[in-house]
């Protein structure tokens, strides 16, 4: 089996010692595998482990000749004797090899360090995710000259249960036996001169010699280079052009749907295996082909959506993101590329990402992309408003809020009555920031809504600009008798908003609210006074500052405390210059 000869026969005692040594070598091999699995490629510890295993293997092979193992489920057999691996290893190497269908292993003297490194790299690779090959194929393709193996026959590798027998298509049979087939053929060049021909075999049976194509070994080398360049390092084996060919060649809509569906299935497979980079490449290729397809341009919106729905399954995207997050070293650029490739008809896929991922970086990028793809058609997000999860609605509200223009206003007004306060807050903030008069009016109305949870965010959201009319309305409410019956939080919000949107007209009211506690009030602080002091500061006028200074001399402890705190935290606003 080995050009270097079989292992030397040994006596029983010698065989025992040799087995011990070989078992120790296998144990070292297993430990090295663990190191390769757990440490990154360029880790210096890998080099040391590889070096020591190479030395050990060389010693063992020089001493005992070529090694031949039978791989069983329980361990390795050498010359029919089981190697005692218990206590030395976690038995992972035999299990790994047996699981890959390898039944016999040959190691010839003596692999060098590079070969051992390549071997450990192949064996130590995680094959549970991505597009990794099966171990036997990877080991074979590594083409290790000193390591050979025998695997089970291919038929035994067919996954069970075997699919039900299907009537295999058969080619047209020849029908009649070849020998009795009537012979008809095109005339040969010498047919006319059959009598004069010197051939012993009748001319009708003469077949001219081959005329070989004019090419040589260099052309063959060029062909080899072409194959290798197309396939090496390419996870698609040079097969990516297929996507555009397959889609581009379909004339009618039904056929096109079939091809897109096939590509979609492939993308789903890739996403399920966490191969986001490859999924991105296929998606990009398919979308480009669809955009260039003459039939797609004329399709109505629903049909286009249907095509894109066949191409990208939102649930698969969510699964792909989960697989990517579970990867030990996730590369964000892979995910970023996929997100950036998703187009408007596949907005749901982005929403699924937001739904299933807790990674802030990812969510931010997905939101950004969602804002881009939904800019012209926020209605795509409407189905997501029906979801019960508050964070979904808040995501949608955030996206709608950031869509430029007033496209999303109607949906935001609908969302503003969401049961969750965080969602309402997001909507109210978006509406308040809107340049639309309708939206702002709606938010102002919300400040007097029957629902307290809506009033608060509305009050807070309106603080973004001075608005004397709004300030007047709010001051009227603050002067009303019912103001004292409002919850403290709402009163604080209302006073804060008066400070943010109002002008000097609000100073008397705010000063009165600041100085409301009596001099006998011994509390350390009063939230209303503090809110009023804050509002005076927010007015940013010298009059308001003077009002605070007056309050700072109050006998009431909460008033004094609130005013002093406001003065301490905010500098004195500049006096306006006298006119002229």
């Amino acid at each position, binding site marked *: 089996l080995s050009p270097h000869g079989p292992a030397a026969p040994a006596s029983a005692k010698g065989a025992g010692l040799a087995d011990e040594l070989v078992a120790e070598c296998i144990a070292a091999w297993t430990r090295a595998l663990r190191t390769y699995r757990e440490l990154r490629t360029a880790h210096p510890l890998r080099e040391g482990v590889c070096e020591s295993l190479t030395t050990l293997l060389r010693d063992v092979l020089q001493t005992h000749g070529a090694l031949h193992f039978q791989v069983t489920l329980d361990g390795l057999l050498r010359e029919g004797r089981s190697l005692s691996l218990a206590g030395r290893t976690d038995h992972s190497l035999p299990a790994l090899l047996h699981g890959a269908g390898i039944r016999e292993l040959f190691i010839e003297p003596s692999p060098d360090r590079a070969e051992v490194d390549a071997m450990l790299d192949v064996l130590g690779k995680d094959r549970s995710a991505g597009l990794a090959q099966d171990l036997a194929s990877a080991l074979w393709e590594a083409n290790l000259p000193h390591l050979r193996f025998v695997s089970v026959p291919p038929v035994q590798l067919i996954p069970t249960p075997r699919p039900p027998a299907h009537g295999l*298509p058969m080619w047209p049979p020849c029908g009649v036996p070849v020998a009795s087939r009537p012979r008809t053929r095109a005339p040969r060049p010498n047919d006319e001169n059959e009598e004069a021909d010197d051939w012993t075999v009748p001319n009708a049976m003469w*077949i001219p010699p081959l*005329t070989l194509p004019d*090419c040589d*070994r260099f052309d063959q080398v060029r062909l080899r280079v072409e194959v290798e360049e197309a396939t090496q390092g390419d996870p698609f084996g040079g097969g990516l052009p297929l996507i555009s060919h397959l889609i581009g060649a379909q004339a009618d809509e039904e056929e096109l749907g079939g091809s897109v569906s096939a590509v979609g299935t492939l993308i789903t497979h890739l996403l399920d295996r966490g191969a986001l980079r490859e999924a991105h490449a296929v998606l990009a290729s398919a979308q480009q082909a669809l955009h260039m397809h003459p039939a797609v341009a004329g399709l109505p919106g629903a049909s286009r959506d249907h095509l894109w729905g066949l191409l990208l399954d939102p649930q698969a995207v969510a699964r792909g993101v989960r697989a990517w997050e579970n990867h030990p070293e996730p590369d964000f650029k892979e995910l970023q590329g996929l997100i950036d490739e998703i187009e408007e008809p596949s907005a749901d896929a982005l929403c699924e990402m937001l739904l299933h991922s807790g990674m802030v970086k990812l969510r931010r990028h997905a939101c950004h992309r969602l804002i881009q793809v939904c800019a012209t058609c926020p209605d795509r997000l409407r189905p997501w408003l029906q979801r019960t999860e508050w964070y979904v609605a808040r995501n949608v509200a955030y996206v709608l809020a950031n869509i430029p223009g007033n496209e999303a206003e109607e949906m935001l007004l609908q969302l503003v009555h969401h049961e969750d306060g965080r969602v309402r807050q997001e909507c109210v903030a978006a509406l308040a920031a809107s340049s639309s008069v309708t939206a702002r009016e709606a938010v102002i109305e919300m400040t007097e809504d029957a629902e307290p949870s809506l009033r608060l965010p509305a009050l807070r959201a309106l603080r973004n600009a001075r608005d004397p009319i709004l300030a007047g309305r709010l001051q009227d409410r603050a002067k009303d008798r019912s103001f004292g019956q409002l919850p403290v939080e709402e009163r604080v919000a209302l006073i804060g908003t008066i400070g943010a949107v109002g002008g000097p007209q609000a100073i008397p009211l705010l000063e009165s609210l600041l100085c409301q506690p009596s001099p006998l009030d011994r509390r350390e602080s009063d939230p209303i006074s503090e809110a009023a002091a804050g509002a005076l500061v927010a007015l940013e006028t010298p009059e308001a500052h003077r009002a605070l200074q007056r309050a700072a001399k109050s006998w009431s402890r909460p008033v004094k405390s609130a005013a002093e705190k406001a003065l301490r935290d905010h500098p004195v606003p500049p006096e306006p210059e006298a006119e002229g």
Partner: protein
Amino acid sequence: MKPQKNRPEFTPEELLTTMTGGAPIKPAPAPSSLPKLVEPVAKVPPRQADAAGDAVQAAAVYQGACEVVAWAYDACADGAPLDAVPLRAVVRELVDTLSVPNLRLLTLTALDDTENRANRHSVNVAVLAVAIGLRLELSRSSLSRLGVASLLHDTGKVDVPESVLRRSPPFGDAERELLVRHAHAGARRLLQGSDGSAEAMAAALVALEHHRHADGGGYPALEGAGPPVALSRIVSACDFYDSAVFHRSGQPHPFTAHSALERMAIRGGTAFDPVVLRTLIEVVGCYPPGSLVRLSDGYVAVVVSPGAQDPERPWVVPVAGAPRRIVPGEARDLACEAEQEIEVEAVLEPWSMGVDAQAVLRSWMGE
């Protein structure tokens, strides 16, 4: 060990009567004009081609490949996910067997079997493609992709009704359209069932392109696409060759292997990549297994295996001789020193001569 003796069913006299009407065989004036190859076919040292286990091993590998292909077609027809692991294992075995070199695998591609033809066709194409890949010294990963793609290139046939597949040409427009669509159908099925691996993707592309010509013609017409990729060009040549030899190319009559190569050579540069074609000829030989040839010493012989060193000097089994000569019935290696004077003078059509070349091949394979 010498190969098994082959006793033809007919006497030399009977055969010669058919061939020449009793006239003596004279030396032929037109030897093959095939130029010498730059390098020998195999880089390994010459090996005795009659090793005891070669036929058994080749037959086992071939049979296993047929079973795996049958499973793969079943899986594709059922829309089940296609696991590439068994297919890769088949390609490993093909490569390892051909690398030995065990050229009996190439002999097996010349054996006809109407019962199992679809699977055999796929395996034949894979054997030829892998042999070409080895000749081109492709890396193992490329060989793996080429082999898997070859095994699966006709997957689209599962979508063509059996009645159409069983029908002989000429085809009607509808039937032709169905046959033409098998390229698309195959690519789609492979994509749907694929695991996203490089082999599966390459296989789907080859399934789509294996009827496209090297100059961009053929079908399906792909707008904006250049010529087919190299893997597709290799599979395309092997596919045509095997189809032509076994009457699967839509032609009204089958070709001899030699005629198939000749026909391909005429279309070299347009339909077929000339480099691929040249390599295919180097692999199967100028006189591929199954060819009936007349030798310069007067014997008529069936080629049973391509020569390991020189494609012009195959292994042959004589089936008829000149008058009063005894037909030895043993295989002769025309590449060995003792046979250096012997040349192949002419190629004959076995069915015209009444020779059952298949029986000779089966005998050579020990069946």
